[in-house]
């Protein structure tokens, strides 16, 4: 069985981004970019399935600028077998990503697609569910455990009240939550080896998918700032302020 893992190149999670003064977007010049953290978890899960003999091949795919090669190389260094880069001029919306991934799935015929639950730049949390819909497949989102069986998989999901276990038919879409696993670091020899692994380059046009956005971003604003607070010297002072000044207890 092949496992397909879509990985997105995003602003590194440690970077505090700045909104452009003219309100047209976020300033991404000279900002450190990395693989979306949830996608590292998805890659790790796929590699573990291969190591356990439950998958034959792990294919990673990214949609984005030419520099998205870097995150694909990282995934290859972690242990993925080959990579596909679909280059696009502009950032694309989750629905477009899902349509491109559907086209890749039609070519590769994976038994499982593992995505991150959410990209930490757009915070959409949509792509996996949309891909499942377009393929007519089942979905196991926000997964914290995955067990593959014959034709079915058991997925433990992180839900608002705790955990939920469901069974889904294969082929399926799974989206990774934080506690699915702890991704490995790529070793230096594996980073060297990854340079020789195949990386196929395509463009969105090759798949006949329109990348025109459906949503219009009118402007991007700075979030409301909080007024500066004060330090208090003791528990007594804190309680006094909460009662008399803030009136919250």
């Amino acid at each position, binding site marked *: 069985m092949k496992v397909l893992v879509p990985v997105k190149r995003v*602003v590194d*999670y440690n970077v505090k*981004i700045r*909104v452009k003064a003219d309100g047209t977007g*976020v300033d991404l010049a000279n900002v450190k970019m990395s693989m979306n953290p*949830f996608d590292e978890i998805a890659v790790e899960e796929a590699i573990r399935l291969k190591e356990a003999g439950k998958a034959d091949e792990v294919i990673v795919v990214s949609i984005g600028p030419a520099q998205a090669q870097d995150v694909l190389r990282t995934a290859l260094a972690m242990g993925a077998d080959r990579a596909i880069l679909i280059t696009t001029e502009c950032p694309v919306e989750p*629905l477009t990503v*899902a349509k491109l991934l559907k086209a890749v799935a039609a070519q590769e015929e994976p038994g499982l697609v593992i995505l991150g639950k*959410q990209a930490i730049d*757009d*915070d959409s*949390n*949509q*792509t996996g*569910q*949309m891909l*499942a*819909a377009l393929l007519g497949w*089942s*979905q*196991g*989102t*926000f997964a914290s455990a995955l067990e593959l069986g014959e034709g079915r998989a*058991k997925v433990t999901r*992180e*839900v*608002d*009240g*705790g*955990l*939920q*276990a*469901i*069974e889904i*038919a294969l082929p399926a879409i799974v989206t990774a*939550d*934080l*506690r699915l696993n702890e991704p490995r670091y790529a070793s230096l020899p594996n980073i060297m080896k990854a340079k020789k692994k195949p990386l196929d380059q395509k463009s969105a046009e090759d798949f006949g998918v329109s990348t025109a*956005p*459906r*949503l*219009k*971003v*009118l*402007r*991007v*604003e*700075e*979030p409301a700032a*909080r007024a500066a*607070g*004060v*330090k208090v010297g*003791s*528990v007594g002072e*804190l*309680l006094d302020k*909460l009662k008399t000044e803030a009136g*919250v*207890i």
Partner: protein
Amino acid sequence: MAILLFADHDNGTLSEQTAKALTAALQIGPEVDILIAGKGAAPAAEAAAQLTGVRSVLLAESDALEHRLAEASAALIVGLAAGYDTVLAPATTTGKNVLPRVAALLDVMQISEITEVVSADTFKRPIYAGNAIEVVQSTEAKKVLTVRTAGFAAAAAGAAAAPIKAVEAGTEGAELSSFLENMLSSSDRPELSSAKIIVSGGRALGSEEKFREVINPVADKLGAAVGASRAAVDAGYAPNDFQVGQTGKVVAPDLYVACGISGAIQHLAGMKDSKIIVAINTDEDAPIFQVADYGLVGDLFDVLPELERQL
């Protein structure tokens, strides 16, 4: 301009998130129907019918809908969508699971986690862990939205009951997935998403026992819900559903007390819209103090028991 609100509930009770999402829906337009998908869900439907401003309640019941799994729920909503311009749901784990599937089936781009309704087609939503706010307009004939409920007050209950109409549940999608079990954390404390006061613990708590021993008594005295940072959850000090943050729950209580939490961007994303923030931390330079109204530099193992005594 009719609007379909996919409710969050557990058959027996309607979640407060639904009443909050209704407030957002009513800012978009006046004709709002609430969809209750479930099994044995009449109590939830009756509660929904009493929310002020609801036009009618649609009740669809079947085995496949009992736990609102994505495949059957999305098929149901898509079947009803022709009568609506907007489909929305609170951004609970159920809403986030189901609505993007609906959006793709309708060939629509969803707008996730709106925090403000600017007009019927324009919304504000946070991106980059809330470090930027996008003002986004939909060009689609149909709109599919999830609502970040922390910023909306719950619609009042107790209105004259709106009519409840049964709708055909259908069987589409049911073969794709099945429910096995829920492992829910049970607690007598208020629910995190709707609590007025939250006491949250971080990595500094050091163990599950300490977390319970030190955080819980203060929470109990305050009638507060308990939250946690990702570090505390990952280490097993608190269950996953306690996580507050970019990828956990987003909360905005009257009072949020952060204990031994450094204040990473991802944590702040989930609590920085709280009315009053208190931070207790040994490190006076911890970033959490930058958003705190009241900061107390000190060891939480001294401060929290003292706080409990004085309350």
